[in-house]
């Protein structure tokens, strides 16, 4: 007689009542090492406010994300470089590359130029947009905020008030080098990774002196509970608010109490899930910052260029009366006064 064998596959981690099963043999189906691939997203709501004075170095925020990176070994440095389409991509607002033009709904045009963070006009191939090093993560992925693209608007253009737009599509390529940084866009090794940058440019002439371009979603993540006590959590400092105010305009950002405040303390704001609440606070730093309650705010002076600031949400240690599983949310309104 041959052996009689009864196989047991194990059940994986799962949500209640959802039949998601992990079979042991999944481990044999891993694909071969993947090629590097990268993507980037620009924020099309971030604008430049132009009052006739020269503007240069107006940073357009972009998030990039790469995967398929080498795991372990020496640090890998990267550079993102323009390709030949930089010499021909005029954008939607005009018909020339030097200068590029943004166009108002009425059909008027305003000259501008895209430049690297180093100030080089993006009108030719092999210009370094941005460079850095990949974090040596075990997952082989890297993501972050790229300081790659800036806008320059020459002084003394007389144009009607309004918002002027152009969207410029550029293809960038990633070069990498192991052990040391890249000196130029001919250094290192060209990867097969392309980044398609769909660069939205909005330039305001006249009109309201301040604009809110981008607000973050502040994700505290998964809370931990020990014997009914919720542990503390703070958001990471990489979620920025982006605003633009006209040059010389002073501004103050203040924050509402949200939809479910209770009491008058610094942690009066509450996220809600059904009938369960979690107190949290907003402040200017991960620890030891100013609590952003009542009229306490963040202030600054406009430059015509996008500006950013960070706030932090903190969940203090607390013992809620009830704790319904699920997503807790609150909505706060940021008011930018000028």
């Amino acid at each position, binding site marked *: *007689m*041959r*052996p*009689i*064998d*009864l*196989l*047991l*596959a*194990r*059940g*994986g*981690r*799962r949500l*209640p*009542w959802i*039949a998601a099963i992990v079979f*042991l043999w999944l481990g044999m189906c891993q694909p071969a090492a993947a090629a590097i691939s990268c993507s980037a997203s620009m924020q099309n709501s971030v604008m430049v406010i132009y009052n006739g004075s020269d503007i240069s170095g107006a940073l357009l925020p972009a998030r990039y994300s790469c995967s398929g990176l080498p795991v372990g070994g020496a640090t890998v440095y990267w550079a993102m470089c323009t390709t030949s389409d930089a010499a021909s991509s005029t954008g939607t607002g005009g018909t020339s590359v030097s200068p590029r033009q943004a166009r108002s709904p009425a059909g008027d045009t305003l000259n501008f130029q895209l430049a690297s963070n180093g100030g080089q006009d993006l009108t030719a191939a092999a210009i370094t947009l941005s460079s850095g090093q990949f974090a040596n993560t075990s997952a082989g992925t890297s993501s972050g905020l790229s300081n790659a693209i800036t806008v320059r608007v020459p002084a003394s253009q*007389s*144009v*009607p*008030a309004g918002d002027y737009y152009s969207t410029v599509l550029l293809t960038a390529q990633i070069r990498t080098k192991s052990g040391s940084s890249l000196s130029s866009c001919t250094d290192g090794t060209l990867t097969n990774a392309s980044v398609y940058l769909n660069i939205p440019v909005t330039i305001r*002439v*006249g009109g309201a*002196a*301040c*604009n*809110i371009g981008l*607000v*973050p*979603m*502040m*994700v*505290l*993540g*998964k*809370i*931990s*509970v*020990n*014997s*009914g006590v919720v542990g503390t959590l703070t958001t990471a400092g990489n979620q920025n608010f982006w605003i633009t105010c006209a040059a010389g305009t002073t501004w103050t950002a203040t924050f509402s109490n*949200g939809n479910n405040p209770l009491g008058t303390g610094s942690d009066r704001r509450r*996220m809600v*899930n059904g009938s369960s609440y979690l107190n*949290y606070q907003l402040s200017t730093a991960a620890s030891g910052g100013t609590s952003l309650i009542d009229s306490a705010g963040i202030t600054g002076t406009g430059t015509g260029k996008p500006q950013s600031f960070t706030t932090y*949400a903190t969940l203090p240690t607390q013992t809620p009366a009830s704790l319904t*599983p*699920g*997503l*807790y*949310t*609150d*909505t706060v*309104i*940021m*008011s*930018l*006064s*000028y």
Partner: protein
Amino acid sequence: MTSFLRSKARQATALAWATMSVCSSAGVVTAPFLITARYQQTCQVTASMSTFDFGNVTSNSTTLYTTGTLMVGCDNNSQTPFGVWAPLSANANGTQRRMKNNDTSAGNYLNYNLLIGDSGSTTISSTATTTGFRSPQGGSFTGVLLRAQLPAGQTLKQGYYSDDLILTVSY
């Protein structure tokens, strides 16, 4: 030239507006944003075995057993109730679990039962359940004893008998 003149005229309008704007001086723009946190009870399974193996069986005059332990832990440290169940496989006959002989010319099956818990006599549910066990406090793992039982008195034919079991923890 026409274009230039039109442009100049609009510029005059813009300057007038800008002046008014400075007089009223103040304004406010607002934007809502979201704050979120998530509370999720999450349980994990580590099986200390991947196979129930009755070994080489030459006689079925007595009931045979083989055991294994399923380790279950939940990360919320609060004694989460959970259940362990295993749906019937395609080899089952009604509610009777069976292993199939891989020698198709023999074409026969062997009945087996899957028992759960320390008593060793409770038959595992074939439908979803979230009760029966409770994770220990502190996020550590608890062991769930499983016993596969091959009842005596079945006709043995030469071959390699197997069945695929999917164990599921619901909470």
